[in-house]
């Protein structure tokens, strides 16, 4: 089944959507699938296995971000979760906020917050240097 076909099964086929909307819809499925593993892995490591959040402190984060592996994992998690969340919230805004001004305001605010979070998170993951504190 093609992406367009799967999309059309749920929306009026006589009213073809913009192709950007089809790819947004498909990206939600693709990123969602990746996030199932990334987020549940993150939750298991941080909250369940090996003592949970009680053992999460500065030293824990510092040793975790010692190499590139967990920095890459965390950055992927950050970016995919923000993108998936932003597009999901965009759909919610589209569904529930019908007044044009309010809709535009909420969408703009959402994108600004998400861009800010992506910038802060990327900066922290890339530039954290434990030697500054030892």
């Amino acid at each position: 089944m093609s992406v367009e076909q799967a999309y059309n099964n749920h929306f009026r086929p006589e009213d073809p959507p913009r192709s950007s909307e089809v790819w947004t819809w498909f990206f939600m499925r693709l990123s969602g699938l990746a996030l199932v593993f990334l987020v549940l892995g993150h939750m298991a490591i941080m909250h369940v296995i090996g003592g949970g959040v009680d053992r999460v402190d500065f030293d824990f984060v510092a040793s975790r971000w010692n190499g590139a592996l967990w920095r890459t994992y965390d950055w992927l998690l950050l970016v995919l979760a923000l993108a998936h969340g932003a597009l999901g919230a965009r759909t919610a805004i589209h569904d529930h906020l019908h007044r044009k001004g309010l809709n535009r305001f909420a969408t703009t605010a959402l994108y600004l917050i998400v861009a800010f979070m992506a910038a802060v998170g990327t900066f922290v993951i890339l530039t954290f240097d434990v030697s500054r504190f030892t």
Partner: protein
Amino acid sequence: MCWYIERLMASPIETSAYKRTLYRGGSGMWSWILHRGSGLAVLGFLFLHVLDTSLVMFGPKAYNTMARIYESALFRPLEVVLMFLVIYHAFNGLRVILIDFWSRGVRYENLLNRAVMGITLILFVPSAFIMLR
């Protein structure tokens, strides 16, 4: 919440996906509401979580003060709620993918819904137990 469901079920929209297939009351409607609610709640926490983690840039004192607040009795229940919302959203999302891409997905919609709840509880209950220990 009830006014909201009633309004959706009484919606005059005849031509949308909503009328044709899934989203008309029952388990489909409830899973839709839970999926949206959990997604927005988790996104809200994600924003907070980016900011709290960035305290790591200000050194051990700042980060550990924040971590201790999260570990306090006040935030423990919220950690458990977050775990439930994340697990539910993950497996309900897989159900959505199955319904979209598997030709027989719609036919097994109810079964899939129960499977999602079952898997969610199987994973959630032990992890909640471990987190609250």
